[in-house]
Structures are given as C-alpha cells and as structure tokens.
C-alpha cells in the first residue's frame, strides 16, 4: 500500500484511542456551543441546558445548598460534555481541512483568450469562470478544477490524495480531470475550467471534513423525532408528578419534609435532575458526533462522501455493481500463453518476448519475463547485462516497446501498432495473425503482438487474474445480504468464467453504460439500493442513478460530479469498505440509543426511593443499590449521566465493532452488549460514584 499524508490521523483513530489533548483543545469550541441558538438543533441537550440554568438560579436563590450547586454544576458539565463530543469530532475534520487548505494556495492563472488562442492574460485563480481555458506548464499549480482539453502531462496530486507518485492526465478519455491546487510536473496542458468560483473540489472537501454545512441525514432526522417524543413523555411524566407528590405529603401530615420533598412537592433541583437523567441525553449528546465521525472514517480511507445521506445509504446497499477490471481482477493482465505463428517455434517467440520485455517494468512486462522463465526456462537477464542493447520505451504515441540488440529490432505491443510497424518496415503480416488476435480477444484476453523487423513472430495472450481473497469477500457480502454483480465489457462466456472463479452472484457482460443504467434502475424498482464505482464520463448517468456512486479520483469531472462519493485512491475495491462503514455508522447509532434508554432503569431505582422514601418508607425497598442518602443517590445519578457521555465519546468516534455477519447474529451481540450492558452498567456506575461522593458535605 502506498503511504498517505492522512495516514497518521487514520492510525490514531483506527486504534480508537482518543488523545486527551483533543478534549482539551476542543474545550473552547464546546463552550461556544453552549449558545442556545446553536443548541437549538439538539432539543434533548437544549432541555438539559435550560435545566442547568434553572437549577443554577434555584441554587442561588431558594434552594441554596451544596447539593443544589453540585447538581447545577454537573448539569452544566453534561451539556459541555455533549458539546465536547461534537467539537472533538469536528476537530478531527479540521485537522484534515488544514492539510487541504495548504494545497489551496493563491495561484495565478494564464487564461487563454480563446480555446485555440495563443495569447493569454494573467489573472488570479478566484477570477476564473466556468468555460475559461487556462494553460499550465511544468512546475505550475493548476488554478482550478477542470478537464484537460489539450496535451498530456504528469501531475503531482499528493496534496489531495497523499499519493506521492505522479499521475498522468491527458486530454480525451477518462483521465482528463485535474484538480485545482495540484502541480504539473512535466509537459504543458490546456485545461477547461469546470468549477464555479469558490466551489472547487478542494473547497468542497474542506467544507465536508469540517462538517461546516452538515445536514442531518434522513435516519438521523427520524431518530431525532423519536428522541424528541421520548423527551416529551419524560417531561410530562416529571411535571405531572408534582401534584401527586403534594397530595402524598398532604395525606401524611406527620412526615417532616426533606431536601427532596416538602409540602410544596418535589424540590426544583431534584425534579430537574430526574428529568435530565430520564431523557435520552447519552444518544442526544453523541448523535451528531456519530454522524461526523462516520464521514470522518471515510475520509481516513481517502473517500470523500458528498453527503451524510450517501454514507447512510451505503449501509443499506443490497446490490453492489463491481467493475471487473481493477476490482475483481488485477488491473493488469498477465501473460498466460505464447502463441507463435506458423513457422516460428514457441521457444523463438518466448525468447523474443522476453528480450522485448526485460526493460519493461509494467506488471504486464514483468509477467511476460516470469512466464518465459517458468514455462520455457529462459533465464531472466538484467537489462545491464546486454551492453549493446538499446531499449525502446513505451510511449502513448507508439503504443509499443521493445529493444534493438545486435542489429535485431524486436517490438511488442498492441496489435494494430505492431502490425503497422511491421508493414512500415516492409513486412506483410498474414491473416493468421489477425485470427490469433481476434481469438484471444474473443476469449476475454488481451493479445500483444511480438514482431521482429519485417515479420510477426506471434502473439502473447494476456489473461485476467482474479485478485486474491475476493471469493471470501463476496461470501462475506452474501452473509450480509448483499448481492454482488460483476460488470464487464467481456463477452458472456469469458465473463461467466471469471464470475465463477471470483464467486460473484451475477454478472453483466458486454456492458454498455446504458446497460449499467438500466440494471441499476431495475434493481431500484425492486426496492434495492445499489452501489457502484465508475470513472468515465459515460459512467456519469449510472453514477448519478446509483444510491451510492463512488467516482474514482482519476476519473473525469463529469463522473466526480455525478457520484456522491469520490475515492481519492481510485481503488474500486473500496466500495466494500464503504458499505461496512455505512453499516457501522447505523449500528453505532442504534447501539447507543438502546444503551441510553436502557440506562434509565437504574436511574429510576436511584432517584425514586431518594425522592419518596421520606413519605413512604416502604419505597426504600427500591433502593436496591443501597445508596448512602437521597442526596448522594440523586447526585450520583446525575454525575453518572454526565460521565457516561465522556466515556462513550471514543466509541462514538470509532464506531462500534463491526464484523460482517447475518442480521440476527449482529443483533444478538449488540443487544447483549448495549441492551443488557445498558441496564447493568449504570447500577455499578452509580453505586461506585455514590461510594465516592457520600463523604462530601451535605450528602447525608
């Protein structure tokens, strides 16, 4: 794997360790978020803040006691902890945004006066408009996002991808997109600007990782509604308790009032404490952090999701469309056979193929040398051994490579290019060559023609090689309930063979972009959510139609526009990881909701006897934790309620453990951990806190 600039962050988060310093640095932001206007978006925490304010006023005026101040303090801390969770999650994005900003230097551009014009004006990058043409030469920074319309160049994109090796960008085809802020290393290109000012890819990335204009996802909205409903119920349950408490005191006139309960009912501080303990503060505090962290985990894998909605959809995906090449098979085919033409021995062909490939460092070239050695026992020679050899490198123009050695000229390459070269050197390739080439193509392989000056020697059959571990991966997907479909331009026979070898559920052969689109539509009509990857302009409609469309960063801007995620590594296999991250996000949300609600059981056992045992001593039987005093019981519940938020921040950021498995199994495990754990944990936690705080003043 290559190294990324972002990997440092990735490792830290991946380990799930929360740097305590992060909490500290996020504190100012957390305090800023106390502003009710900001908190309005989170009704649960807004209620806590109002409660904190109310208890503070009560503690300062009518219910002055250490207990009152302690409760007020911890309620404020509860809100701060919730804000801290969000601030920490956002803070991580900010670190990444800073890296990106470094790439967004103020550049100047040489704007052409017309597409073909040779004249240009120097303008600032922000002044560029869509449809402008700029010329960029080696050493210059590309001023904005666009497509290469002329020329070919190697570009350093490490600023956004972290990939240090330069990439080739050329006009036409699927590798024409360039990103503002990246640097041209060689050659000269003309770029047509496709972005609007201030909306460059880097701008959007910065906004995304910072969570600046994060919108709630549909499921998050739904969950918020449920949480609001629960909050209302507990608000009503707490508020309506007052007349009942007053009545209870009135029918027991001999019972003296306590700090918690007087003739006027339950004290305001205690009432607020009960309310805050009951409403789902844990999930309310962590919900937005979970969402931000989900996006963040994608960023760590060098995937940019354009919306949280896309991440959520990833969890729901039931059909994966996977391009064969690069995803299921190695992007590079390997030599599987040397087919000589009549009159040439296989040995002779192998020797020529080997010679022509010695200096060829591409995977295909290496595979030819390896094949020659394994099948024909030809010793691999270092290019340096052949002192007189003149190596002919592959170029985009010639589309072949080879060697001139001791007067021999050997070339290998694409059939048309090599045949043309043979003819140019007076040769007359027979029809046999054409048949061989067609045969190999038809079987799904790639033919490379090997020729010596003036005559064709034979054809190298390059075959697809299925990546290791793909079958296991697909089995896993099946267990998760996801159907995998291989998309390939190959004929059905070849496609079927590879599909079977790889273990995908289905395949679409001889696929045109239209086929892809209609396949997606068909799946969606059946209620399925579809994920796919794509890079070409002709993939754009399908990417737009898919529920999760992952565009390769190497692809065209049209593809990147159409999809809702961009993979900076341009690694199509990552689709599988994206699905897992989506699922993990949803599971984390559900698990913490369950945990939050389950917590309430123990809090009742702490607070109800604390409030009412004075008037009905029998209710002390509910004090199963044997908490020291009513005050310590209530304070312990409030402290637990606050601390559990801090304790769960790492989990919210990391996401709960996810292993691909069937729904039932997953659910059992999560129910066990977060449901049962949610019931049990606070009993232990509140008891522990009570043991510690019972010695504080005013606790007895």
């Amino acid at each position, binding site marked *: 794997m290559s190294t990324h600039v972002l990997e440092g962050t990735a490792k830290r988060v991946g380990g799930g360790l929360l740097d305590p310093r992060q909490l500290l640095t996020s504190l100012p932001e957390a305090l800023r978020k106390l502003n009710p206007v900001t908190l309005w978006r989170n009704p649960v925490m807004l209620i806590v803040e109002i409660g904190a304010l109310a208890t503070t006023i009560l503690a300062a005026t009518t219910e002055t006691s250490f207990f009152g101040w302690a409760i007020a303090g911890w309620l404020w801390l509860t809100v701060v902890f919730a804000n801290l969770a969000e601030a920490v999650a956002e803070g991580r994005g900010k670190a990444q945004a800073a890296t990106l900003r470094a790439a967004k230097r103020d550049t100047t551009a040489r704007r052409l006066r017309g597409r073909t014009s040779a004249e240009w004006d120097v303008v600032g990058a922000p002044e560029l408009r869509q449809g402008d043409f700029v010329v960029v030469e080696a050493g210059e920074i590309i001023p904005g996002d666009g497509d290469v319309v002329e020329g070919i160049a190697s570009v350093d994109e490490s600023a956004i991808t972290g990939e240090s090796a330069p990439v080739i960008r050329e006009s036409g085809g699927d590798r024409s997109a360039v990103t503002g802020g990246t640097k041209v290393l060689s050659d000269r290109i003309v770029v047509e600007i496709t972005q609007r000012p201030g909306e460059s890819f880097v701008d959007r990335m910065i906004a995304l990782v910072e969570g600046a204009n994060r919108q709630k996802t549909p499921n998050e909205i*739904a*969950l918020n509604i449920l949480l609001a409903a629960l909050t209302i119920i507990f608000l*009503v349950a707490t508020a309506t308790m007052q*007349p009942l408490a007053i009545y209870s005191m009135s029918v*027991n006139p001999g019972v003296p009032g306590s700090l918690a309960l007087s003739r006027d009912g339950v004290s305001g501080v205690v009432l607020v404490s009960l309310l805050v303990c009951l409403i789902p503060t844990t999930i309310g505090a962590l919900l937005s952090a979970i969402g931000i962290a989900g996006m963040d985990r994608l960023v760590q894998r060098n995937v940019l999701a354009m919306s949280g909605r896309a991440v959520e959809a990833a969890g729901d995906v039931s059909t994966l469309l996977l391009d064969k090449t690069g995803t299921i098979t190695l992007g590079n085919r390997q030599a599987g056979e040397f087919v000589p033409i009549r009159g040439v021995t296989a040995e002779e062909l192998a020797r020529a193929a080997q010679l022509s490939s010695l200096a060829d460092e591409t995977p295909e070239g290496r595979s030819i040398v390896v094949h020659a050695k394994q099948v024909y026992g030809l010793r691999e020679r270092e290019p340096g051994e052949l002192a007189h050899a003149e190596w002919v490198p592959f170029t985009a123009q010639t589309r072949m490579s080879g060697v001139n050695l001791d007067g021999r000229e050997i070339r290998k390459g694409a059939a048309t290019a090599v045949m043309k070269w043979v003819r140019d050197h007076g040769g007359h390739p027979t029809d046999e060559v054409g048949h061989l080439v067609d045969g190999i193509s038809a079987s799904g392989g790639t033919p490379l023609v090997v020729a010596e000056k003036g005559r064709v020697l034979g054809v190298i059959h390059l075959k697809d090689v299925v990546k290791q571990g793909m079958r296991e991966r697909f089995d896993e997907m099946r267990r998760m309930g996801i159907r995998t479909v291989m998309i390939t331009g190959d004929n059905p026979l070849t496609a079927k063979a590879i599909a079977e070898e790889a273990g995908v559920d289905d395949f679409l052969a001889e696929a045109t972009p239209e086929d892809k689109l209609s396949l997606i539509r068909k799946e969606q009509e059946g*209620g399925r959510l579809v994920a796919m990857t794509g890079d070409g302009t002709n993939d754009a409609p399908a990417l737009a139609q898919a529920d999760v469309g992952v565009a390769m960063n190497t692809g065209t801007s049209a593809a990147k526009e159409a999809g809702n995620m961009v993979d900076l590594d341009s690694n199509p296999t990552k689709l599988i990881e994206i699905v897992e991250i989506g699922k993990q996000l949803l599971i984390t949300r559900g698990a913490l909701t369950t945990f939050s609600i389950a917590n309430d059981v123990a809090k009742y056992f702490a607070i*109800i006897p604390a409030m009412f045992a004075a008037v009905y001593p029998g209710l002390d039987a509910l004090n199963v934790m044997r908490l020291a005093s009513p005050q310590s019981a209530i304070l312990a519940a409030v402290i637990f309620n606050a601390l559990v938020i801090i304790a769960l921040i790492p989990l919210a950021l990391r996401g709960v453990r996810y292993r691909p498995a069937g729904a*039932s199994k997953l659910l059992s495990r999560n*129910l066990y951990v977060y449901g049962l754990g949610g019931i049990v944990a606070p009993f232990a936690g509140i008891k522990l806190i009570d043991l510690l705080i019972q010695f504080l003043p005013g606790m007895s």
Partner: protein
Amino acid sequence: MAALFVVALVVALVLVHKPLGDHMYRVYTGVRHSRAERVVYRLVGVRPESEQRWPVYARSLLAFSAVSILFLYAFQRLQDKLFLSLGLAPVPDHVAWNTAVSFVTNTNWQAYSGESTMGHLVQMAGLAVQNFVSAAVGMAVAVALVRGLARDGADTIGNFWVDLVRGTLRVLLPLAFAGAIVLVVGGVVQNFAGPHTITTLTGGTQHLTGGPVASQEVIKELGTNGGGFYNTNSAHPFENATSWTNWFEILLILVIPFSLPRTFGRMVGQVRQGYAIAAVMGVIALASVTLTTVFELHGAATVPQAVGAAMEGKDVRFGVADSATFAAATTLTSTGAVDSFHDSYTPFGGMMTLFNMMLGEVAPGGVGSGLYGMLILALITVFVAGLMVGRTPEYLGKKIGAREIKLASLYFLVTPVLVLTGTAVAMANKAGLAAMLNTGPHGLSEILYAFTSASNNNGSAFGGVTVNTPWYDVALGLCMAFGRFLPIVFVLALAGSLARRIPVPESAGTLPTHRPQFVGMVVGVTIILVALTFLPALALGPIAEGLS
C-alpha cells in the same frame, strides 16, 4: 386449578384463532358483496367498489363516530319519551355526554348504574349497537394499517363503509348470536321484563330485574367493550351466572384480539409475522395473568391477611384465581368488564390491572386497537433494533422513515400525556380529589386508574371513585375521545404513508421480525417504555401502598 383454567383458555384460543383469523382474512380481502350487504350499501348511499385514500377513510370514520355520539346522547336524553324505558328519567346531560363518548369510543366507562339509569331500549338499541359498531371501527382501522403494510406503492387503504359493514355483519353478528345462546344456557337472562318484587324466604322483599342481557353481554365481551347491563357488570349473576360462563366470557374477550394477528399474517402474505405478533401478545398476557393471580392468591396486604384471602369484592363461584384471570384479561384488552372489583385487590394485584392498561392495551388489546397498537410498538422496536443490524430500519420491507416514526411517536405520546396530565389536574383540584373513596396512596390509585382506563379506552374502574360528577364526566369524556380518535387518525395516516412505499426485498442483512429474538425485543421495549413513563405515578400509588 388456576393453571388449568388458563391452560384451557390457551388451548381454546389455539384451536379457534386459525379458523376465525382466516375467516376475517377472507372478510376483509374478499371482493364479493352479499345481497344483504348490497342492500345496506344502497341504503347508506356508498359505492362499495371505490377505495379510499387515508384522509377520506379517516373522515368517514370520524363522521360516523360523531353522528353516533350525537345519536346516543339524544337517545339517553329522550329515553322517557320512548317505550321500554321502565319509567326511568332522562339521563342527566353530563352523564349522557360521558356515556355517549364512552360507548362510541369502545371504552364503555360507566358513570352510571345500569339498572337504575338506562331503560331496555337505550341499552339494546343505543348502547349495544355501539358495542357492535365501535368494535367494527377498531377492526377497520387495524385492517387499514395492515393493508398499508401489505400494499406496494398504493394510494388507497380500503373503504371504511365496507370494512364497517363487513366487520359488523360477517364477523361480530354471527359470533354474538351463537355466544348469546351459549350464555343463556348458562343462566344469563334474555327477556324484556321490568323489575318485579318477590317475597323472600324470611318474608323480606327483593326486586328481581330482567332485560335483554345475554345479547348485550356477549357483544360486550366479544367487542372488548365492557359496559355492563348492570352496575356490578360481569360479577352480576344475571350477566355471568356460573364458573364456566366466566371462562367462556374470558374466551370471548380474547378470541378476536388473538385471532387478528393471523389475519394480519395472511394479509401480508407471511403467516409467521402474524404469529410473532401473537407471541408478543401471548408472552405479555401470560406473564400478566400469572403475576396478577399470584399477587391475589398470595394476598399480601393488611385486610387480605386479616381475612385470610383476597375475597373482598369477589364472588364465591369464581374464586380468587379465576377472578384474577378475568381482571388481567379485561385490562389487557380494552374490555373493562369486571367479575370482581379491582379497587379491593391487593396493592400489587391492582397495580397489575393498571399496568396492563398502561401498556396501551396491546397484549392482545382491544379488537383492532390491540393489533394496531402492537404494530406501532413493533415499528418503534424495529426502528431502534433495526439500526443495530446496520441498516436503516424496515418492517415487512417497508422503510421506517421520518414520517412513519413521527406518526408512530405521536400515536405513542397521546395516551401517556392524557393519563398523566389528567391525573395531575385531578389531583391538583378539589373537584378531582373529592371523588376518592379510599384515602392515601389507594385514593391516588383510584384517580390514576380512572384516567388510565378512560384514555386507553378500557372502561373498568377502581370502582370506589365517584365519577358521575360534571367535572369527571367532562374530563374523562375528553380523555376517552382524544384517547380514541387521535391515535386512530395517526394510524390511518401511517397506513397511507406505508401503503405508498415500495417494499425492500428481504435479504440476509434484513432484521428478521418473526423470530423469538424479535418477539423478546418487542416485549422488552413495550414493558421498559411503559415502566419508565409511569413508574413515578405508580410509586406514589400502588407501589407505596404495597410496600408499606
């Protein structure tokens, strides 16, 4: 013996639910109209073939209910002008309003004493009619929701008038007729006689009353209505003559609510989904029956300890255990009929009857209302649990989005808010407090019970509370009306929104909603949510009393 009594009920339900559930499936999905029904539709002036979108369905339902309330109110106020009034005076306005709402909402809370307030005609042609149609309305709403789950991308959820007529004529009427005859065999009276006086053995006088009791008794149980012909309801020997009619009446209470899940399963094309719902109901019901019976048999409280058994308010022929089973059944459903008096139950036994209603009456709940209430709980469970399998939640292939969860939440909010605010307001004013018969925490339980019963459309009472005052008649009437019709509107809206959704096909990644795991989860969610909502109130009522 107590166990055998319950086992016999379970066996009977197992035997009956299938034919009845399948019958209801055919009733609500059939396309043919009988000749009699065609005549009815012609008289009513509706086209039975045309389907309704949810707002139209809801408006038809509300129109029918509004008309019913007005009609029943007028009927009571004018009873002295009509025949068979037994010479009884017009019902006072606030009682008439309360009773009209009560019977139309399937609550059958009784702020009056049957034998001294209502003539035979009002009972038979007013109250008993609502016993039929309010039950049919409940079933119609449940069926509409099931259609919402069963249909793909549909706009309509059925035709209210057809569902109402079919539920009444094809489901309730035949069962009621057969059941009424069975009850008569047991000794339940069926005549049109007024009270007549006899001389007893020792020369005293006794007034013996009559009336069309069996025909009303059977639909009162079958439709989970609960409004007794007489004040002492199903404890009265003329309503519930023997220990076996007692068993039979419990069966009548449970039979439709426990058969509807099968109808649901058939309608959504997966019978096992229906059985999962039935299992949730069954688990809660069995646990509740067991606990109530154990608490009553154990008799832990001062008076039962002094007596040696919790026999106060219970009849000898039923005994403590069977009475407790009846009490659990009537509060687990929205029936509210009683064969013994909950006010005199042990604190925890009485709390169980309260808690059963607080569950929202879903195990198995009222006819129709139990099924739709349970389906809403299943939706809420799916929503939380579904996330934990890593998918946005879906139930029966239907995605639970923001709109669905909003409607489910609103549904879930209505009754707790009504119960708790109603109780709080009553406890905070003199008119409310004056109604208590008992004092201390038991008095609080009486008020809490009244609002719980009214808001959940149960209708049973901690009988000591004096509720035929204008204040209570109005307050509880409002609770009954809001507690019935707000949830219904939310359910129908939910049905409409679910019907429009295209189902997601099931896969290995889908949360299975037919396994014991899911059943356990719905049970857990139901009990925990309810316990969390009502624990403070219960702590100051029955729990304080029971732990003293």
